[in-house]
Each structure stands twice: as structure tokens, then as C-alpha cells.
């Protein structure tokens, strides 16, 4: 088992809200007088949970509240959370830009933090000079940069412009060069904040590949903060979900992504609450098997799953058919599965309890789907159940079908184009 390279213990960070300047001298003097008298002047007792939407009298908020976690050597650790959850504050603490109000952080190696690409780039200096400047700011020695200079330039793909002042660069070139420097840092721990949000798609893929290389082949530790859940899923081995300054869940990437898309609590939990009286047979509950999320009624889009419907019958039933219908948008049928199309046509059941299993995958967009099931014998409906436990489909972030305009299907697609017959209009 690899050892911990980073341990965060009970770290809290309190920020003051509102105007900082006016009155700060008198506040400082007041606090100083209180301190002289031996009173408790800690701002901790004033601070409260960070909730942007709520108006409150307290001037102090917990941006981070009692956060503890550890990261192992060679691990790629993702940190996700909504805006204001404390992600950036955490990274600032880890990269020593500001200190925690409480708690401690133990670090077992050199840290390079990349909270922004191109920090310290000077517009008047050439690309070459900026590589050295930026590298040195990020903690590299001059000969380390020299040794890797050609590699950095090759990665950035801007050889031609390396002696041009960076103010003449396009924003894409700027980002390429800046990321190239950062990607070739030699520190044991790399901290990345949203840096992949810049640059074109091709370069983003290249960056992701480089990050994978850094962690898997070079055994270095990466802490990765992003809103791009797809990137987190691709890179990270484990992750933490922050919510209002507290770690809501620390665990495998899949479980954290599941918690991130939490849709709230369901009381029925797939169990039928009203059993129909004097029926020959009835469904009792349904659940999923083989899905990644822990919740028994949640799956990721497109993954292989198995619907398990439990059925109880009191009498011998012949020529049975099971129907499973999936609905969306309050009643439109998305899919209807009929057991007799996939199984022996003549299904007969002795009295007892049975599990009916449908193996399938649902490449559909994230959301909640209604489920109806029916049991038919000789064309006679024995039981019908519309469960109030909805099927929750989570985004696997492999495609971008997230808004209402993008339809219901969520299938990985590729795109390219070729000119078949083009008119050549040159503007020379």
C-alpha cells in the first residue's frame, strides 16, 4: 500500500465578508484591547456556514469547515463541488498562498500549484524568456528548465514564435506555452485548478493525456479541481465532494460523481406500499443490479444494468408475459420491453416468489424516469404497477446531452468532415 503524501487534518478557513477597509483600524484596536484583557477574541465563534443565498448578520463565514482527508503517493485525487463549496480555498491553503484558520496540512514532497495558467507571464518578454520566468515562479531551478526546454517548446507546438514577445501571441498560443511549462514541472505533487477549461478541444485532450502520463507513468500525485466532471472521471482514482465547506463524501470517483448528482431522498425505495387485495399475483418491489451507483434505483447513462422485478403469486399461472415500460416527460413511452420477445414463449409459474430480470443499457440523458410494469396471463392483466420510485439516470459525462434541447439519447458520437467538391476562392 502506498503511503500518504498529503494529510489534511481538521482544516478550517474563515473569511470576513463585506467592506474590509472602513473601520478595520478601530476593529483591530478593539480586538487588541479585548486581547489585552484576556477575553476570547477568536473569530471562530462568530463564523457560520457559508451559504451564499442566505442573508445573515454574521460577518464571518466558514469557507472551509473541519476538512480532513489524505492523498496517497501516485494518486490522482479529484475535488468537485458547486461554486462556493470551498474548492479554490482548499487549493489556496494547500499551495501555501494563505494559511488555514485552524487545523494542519502535512506535505511529504515539493508542491507545484497551478491555479492559473501563465502566472507571471510578462507581455513584453519573449516566449523563451517567459518559459524561464514562469518555470522559476513555479519553483523550478534554471538548469531544470534548461534541460527540459526543448521538450516544453515541442509540447506547446509554437516553435516559430518562441522568440516573439508573448503579447503578440494569440490567446491559444499563450495557453499552450503556459500549460507546457506547467506540465513539465518536476514536483512530486501537482495541484491543478480548472486549467483545462482553456484551450481548444484538441489541446485539452493532449493536456489530459499528459496528466495521465504524469500520474500513471511518473508516479506523481495530482490534485485536480474541475467543473469538468468528464475530465475528473477520466483522470482521477478517488475524489472528494465538497458542499458548503464540508467534505460530503470522500471515496471512489464513481461514488462521488453519484453523490454530486444527488436527486434527493426517495421514501418508497422500490418497495410497493399498496399490495392489491385478492389478486392471483402481484409485483412487490423492483431494483437494479450491476449498476455502478450504490443506490439500487440509480444507474449511469449507457452502462449495463439489470432490472430486477420481484413477483409473488398464489396460484399456478400459465402463458405469462411481463411488460416493463419506461416513461419520460410525464407519460411519453421511452421504451417497452416484453418478456416474451426475449424468452421462452410459454412461461408458467408455480406459486412462489420470482425475480424477473431484464438485462439492458440505457444510453439516455440524465434525469428521472417513471417505471410501469404489468403481468399478463392468457391476455388477462393479472397485475399492473406504476412505481413511485423513479429510475434515476446519472450522466457519465461522455457526451454533452445535458440541456433540454439536446434530446433524449446520450450516445457517444464522433465527427469529421472532408471536402468532396469545393470551390476555391482565394482572397489574395
Amino acid at each position: 500500500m502506498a503511503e500518504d503524501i498529503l494529510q489534511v487534518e481538521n482544516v478550517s478557513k474563515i473569511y470576513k465578508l463585506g467592506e474590509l477597509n472602513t473601520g478595520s483600524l478601530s476593529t483591530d484596536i478593539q480586538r487588541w484591547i479585548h486581547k489585552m484583557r484576556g477575553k476570547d477574541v477568536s473569530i471562530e465563534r462568530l463564523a457560520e456556514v457559508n451559504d451564499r443565498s442566505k442573508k445573515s448578520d454574521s460577518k464571518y463565514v466558514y469557507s472551509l469547515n473541519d476538512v480532513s482527508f489524505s492523498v496517497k503517493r501516485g494518486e490522482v485525487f479529484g475535488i468537485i463541488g458547486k461554486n462556493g463549496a470551498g474548492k479554490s480555498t482548499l487549493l489556496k491553503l494547500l499551495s501555501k498562498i494563505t494559511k488555514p484558520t485552524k487545523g494542519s496540512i502535512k506535505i511529504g514532497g515539493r508542491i507545484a500549484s497551478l491555479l492559473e495558467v501563465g502566472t507571471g507571464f510578462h507581455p513584453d518578454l519573449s516566449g523563451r524568456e517567459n518559459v524561464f520566468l514562469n518555470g522559476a515562479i513555479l519553483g523550478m531551478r534554471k538548469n531544470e528548465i534548461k534541460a527540459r526546454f526543448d521538450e516544453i517548446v515541442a509540447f506547446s507546438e509554437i516553435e516559430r514564435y518562441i522568440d516573439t514577445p508573448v503579447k503578440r501571441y494569440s490567446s491559444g498560443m499563450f495557453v499552450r506555452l503556459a500549460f507546457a511549462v506547467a506540465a513539465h514541472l518536476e514536483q512530486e505533487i501537482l495541484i491543478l485548478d480548472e486549467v483545462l477549461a482553456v484551450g481548444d478541444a484538441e489541446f485539452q485532450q493532449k493536456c489530459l493525456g499528459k496528466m495521465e502520463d504524469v500520474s500513471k507513468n511518473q508516479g506523481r500525485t495530482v490534485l485536480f479541481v474541475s467543473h469538468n466532471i468528464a475530465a475528473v472521471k477520466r483522470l482521477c482514482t478517488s475524489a472528494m465532494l465538497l458542499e458548503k465547506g464540508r467534505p460530503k463524501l470522500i471515496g471512489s470517483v464513481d461514488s462521488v460523481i453519484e453523490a454530486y448528482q444527488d436527486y434527493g431522498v426517495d421514501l418508497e425505495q422500490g418497495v410497493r406500499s399498496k399490495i392489491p387485495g385478492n389478486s392471483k399475483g402481484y409485483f412487490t418491489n423492483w431494483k437494479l443490479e450491476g449498476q455502478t451507483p450504490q443506490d439500487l434505483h440509480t444507474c449511469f447513462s449507457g452502462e449495463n444494468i439489470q432490472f430486477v422485478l420481484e413477483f409473488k403469486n398464489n396460484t399456478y399461472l400459465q402463458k405469462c408475459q411481463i411488460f416493463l415500460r419506461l416513461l419520460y416527460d410525464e407519460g411519453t413511452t421511452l421504451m417497452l420491453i416484453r418478456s416474451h420477445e426475449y424468452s421462452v414463449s410459454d412461461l408458467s409459474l408455480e406459486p412462489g416468489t420470482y425475480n424477473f430480470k431484464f438485462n439492458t443499457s440505457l444510453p439516455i440523458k440524465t434525469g428521472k424516469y417513471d417505471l410501469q410494469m404489468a403481468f399478463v396471463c392468457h391476455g388477462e392483466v393479472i397485475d399492473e404497477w406504476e412505481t413511485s420510485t423513479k429510475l434515476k439516470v446519472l450522466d457519465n459525462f461522455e457526451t454533452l446531452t445535458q440541456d433540454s434541447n439536446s434530446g433524449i439519447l446520450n450516445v457517444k458520437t464522433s465527427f469529421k468532415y472532408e471536402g468532396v467538391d469545393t470551390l476555391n476562392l482565394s482572397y489574395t
Partner: protein
Amino acid sequence: MKLDESVQTKWKEIITPDNNIFSINLKEIWEYRDLLLILMRRDVLSIYKQTILGPLWFFIQPILTTATFVIIFSRVAKLSTAGLPPVLFYISGIVMWGYFSECILRTSSFLKDNTGILSKVYFPRLIVPLSLVLTNLVKFSIQILLFFIIYTYFVVTVGGIHANWYSLLFPVLILLIAGLGLGFGMIISSLTTKYKDLVHLTTFGVQLMMYTSTVIFPLSGYQDSKYKLLIMANPMTGIIEAFRYGFLGVGEFSWGLLGYDAAFIAFFMIIGIVTFNSIERNFVDTI
């Protein structure tokens, strides 16, 4: 439990809310020495990139100031220059004062000027003021060259001007000026992260301070004046006097005055370090 401990490597660093306000991590600064040099190079280069005159600009400022002083204080107001040619007298003071004022003005706003970098990446923060003091040293050495050109001219044509052994104190004087600029700069810079008022005071204060030094009027001119103590209290007085005495042979040199300067500077350096250390951990949040 024991197994865990044996597997665990030694922590390289432990971040806690507190830090020692009296210490400076010299080892860490040494590790970042390349950054110090690169920052210095950047600042020097960026001053004259895309300018026609380039480093010549470093000459123009002291020349024009000297000319102004010669006209106003020597020709019009007829103030004493301790028997020296006015040009030589003023430029010696102006160049020395220039280094001090550049050091203090640049370092006193370094936290504010570099918020962009400082809030995004960690490196020993003191690298920035150190690099500013060094950058100004480059500028200063170009300006002192100007002084020596004029100095040689007067030594050859006028005569009666002799350097003496005290001129060897020159490097010490430079060190004292750098220390003074750095000490004051750190204090002001630290305080301005919370109280921005000080920004306005600094430029103004440095200007006033010049008039209480001997840049314009020699210390010998204050004989028996009730203001002499005030002038001597200015730490730059002793330094400028020592410089003039060493190279030009006039003025009042005393080890006592220079010793006072050194003690004054050491005191403010310590205050500077303490104030800087106490704001360093959180200044990003308040600036």
C-alpha cells in the same frame, strides 16, 4: 498502528495557522535564487524594451534633477554647497538619494503590485522586494557611472578634489541604503494590505524626508542651528555625508553618525520582518 508509522515518510512541511514572526526562511530563499535573478532580469529588460533610448533613460532623470537644483538652490537661492562645484555636490546627493527613494517606493507597494502572482502561486514572498532592491542596484550602478564621469571631469579640470580612504566604505553605504529601503518598504507594504491610506503618505513622506537630509544643503551649513539634530536624525544624512567625505573630501564624517544609521536600519529591518511575517499568512485575503 505501528505499521502505518513505518510506512510513512517524513513530512517535508507542515502547514499550521501560526508562524514564527521573527524568522526568515533563508534556506528557502536560497532555493529560489534563480527566480530572484530572473525577476531582476525581467524588470531591467522590461524597462527599456520598445524604447529608443533604452538604458539612457537612467541618465536623464538625475541630469535633469541636478540641473534644476543647480538653478534653483545654487544660482537663485545661493545656498552653500560646501565649497564644491554645485553640479558635483548635487549629483552626489541625488544619485545616493535616488537609490534609497527607488528602493523604498518600489518595495512599499510590492504586495499590492504583485497581487496577481502572489495570490496564485507560492514562492518566498521576500524574493520580490529583494529582486526590486537588486534591480534598482542595476539602475543605480548606471547612475553612479554618471557621477564618476562628472567627478573625473572636475578632478581633472578644477583640481583640489581628492578621494580618501573613507571612499572604501562605499559598498557598506550601498548595503545600508538597501537595508533601509527594504526595512521601511516591508513595513509600509505590510500595512497597506489593510490600510491603503499609507500609499498616499509614502510618496509624499519620501519627498519630505529628502529635505531633512543633506541632499540639498550640507550638514556643515547647519552649524549651531537648532535644526541640526533633526537633520542628523535622518538616517540618510550620515550615509550621504560619508559618501561625500570619502570621494569629495568635504562634509562631516563621524563613525558615531554612521553607527547610529546602522542601528536605526537594523531596528527597522527587524520591525519590517515582524510586520511582514505577521501579515504574510493572510494578506491575500485582505488585499
